[in-house]
């Protein structure tokens, strides 16, 4: 029986498996970035998280994506990764 040969319709890229960063055991002495992706009510969620973290003496930075419909700009990603050691992001509404 003849074997059928076809052409790969995909971009032929293997998914890049990047290991997750080590999980933090606690937030003491860390700077936590709170990222609002600009979806409705994300600020409500992050305001509450911020008040809880501040009450525990943890430093917090707030960031906002210009729009939830596009990937975060490279500069914003760079700022978040260089200025903070943990990220909490408010995703969907």
């Amino acid at each position: 029986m003849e074997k059928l040969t076809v052409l790969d319709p995909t971009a032929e890229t293997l998914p890049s498996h990047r290991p997750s960063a080590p999980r933090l055991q606690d937030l003491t002495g860390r700077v936590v970035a709170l990222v609002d992706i600009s979806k409705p009510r994300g600020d409500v969620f992050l305001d509450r998280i911020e008040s809880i973290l501040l009450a525990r003496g943890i430093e917090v930075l707030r960031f906002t994506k210009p729009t939830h419909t596009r990937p975060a700009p490279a500069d914003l990603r760079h700022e978040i990764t260089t200025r903070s050691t943990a990220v909490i992001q408010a995703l969907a509404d």
Partner: protein
Amino acid sequence: MELPDGYVIIVSRECETCRELVPAFRELAGNGIGVVFVSQDDAGFPDGVSGVVDDSDLELSWRLAVEVTPTAIRIEGGVPGRRIIGWRKSEWAEFFGVPGLAPDLPDHRPGCGSLTLLPGVPERLAVRYGGGPVLASRRIEFGAMEDEHEAMFARGWTDGLPVVPPTMERVYAMLGGTRRAADEVIGIIPPDYRECTVEKAAVNAVMAGCRPEYLPVVLAAVQALAAEPFNAHGVAATTWYSGPVVVVNGPIATRIGMNSEHNAFGPGNRANASIGRALNLIVRNVGGSRPGEVDRSTQGHPTKYTMAFAEREYDSPWTSLATERGVPQGGSAVTLFAGQGPTPISDQKSRGPDSLTHSLAAGLRTVRHSKAAGPVAALVAVAPEHARIFGAAGWDKERLRGEIIDLLSIPDTELVAGAGGMDEGLAAPATGAVVAKFKPENLWFVHVGGGAGGSSGIISGWVAGPKGSTMVTIPIEED
């Protein structure tokens, strides 16, 4: 095979001209000038000539690029030189140096098409003997006992429906639909941001069921998909419903048989069905957007299978969508809109444009949410019965757009969060200002549908503008 110096004549018994020329062939074979006959379909032809080369696998004809039988080629130093095709007696007499050749035969006969050019044959010969474009895609060989359809489902290449196996022969045939090089990059496709070459588009077009003549439309649609304003990343990833809605304008739509009339959004037309499907397969296979992974649509939409149609231009009272968007009149173009629908609006009683506009506006009020305004988009598919009313009243698309925008300019007290008993709405406080639901650049019209039926369809959009998706129009390259 190595060709001896002298002459080669490629013939076939199937060719009526070749059969008529048998007396000339016998004369040339017998006069010692070194003629080798190559027969495409019968090594016993020409009758009465010995040493005929059997080319029933067409390898030699393919390598010699024969397009017509008979073709006579001079061979010098083993290399093909001058050739003549068909039958012109004086030309043959001069070519072979045989004055008075075949006195009883007519002076002229047209040749026949070479068997190498029969439908489906060039692709098969290109795969077997070379000569086709170089294809870069990985070859995947299925097991002899493996069902190819199950194999393609298992690899995640399909939208849930069976696809046509993209064999090299089929991809070669598909690439015949464009002059663009197979390795030309058409665009970078999100969300994986991978290059889509003409070849990858052709592979997916084969799978979707496209014919080669649809490929220029698919390529233009891929260009639109990759254009930054369309924001294919967001369209793919959003929880919203939208998929790529393909509108085709211009002569190509008629030439490839697209449906712009009855059931234009429905099944049954190969071009409509497969062009939209090819684009979505490219989103999936090249862009890497798959439901449940990057595609996070809450409920999804059939648009993500396929949605492509042509504008009914031949009796439209209006400028076409493409012309309105800057494509020169008479040109072909693809317009891509991130949308879903259509939602039908029935109006069988209006006899004038004012009443009909109110009906359409009432339907358009609910796009996204009845209180949404600003970055809201819609493509209104106006059926001929409705369009005739506007046309008779002298309303062009611009007039209709303006009237609808005016009707849907609403005090923000009606739109603010909490108004009407709905928490959804514009951010408080309301100031009493009037807010237009649609901006002119986000409200478009296309004439489509069968001659009977007093209803039009609203193809609603996603977030409109720079924070969402903007309609993109790309002229179709046909040469």
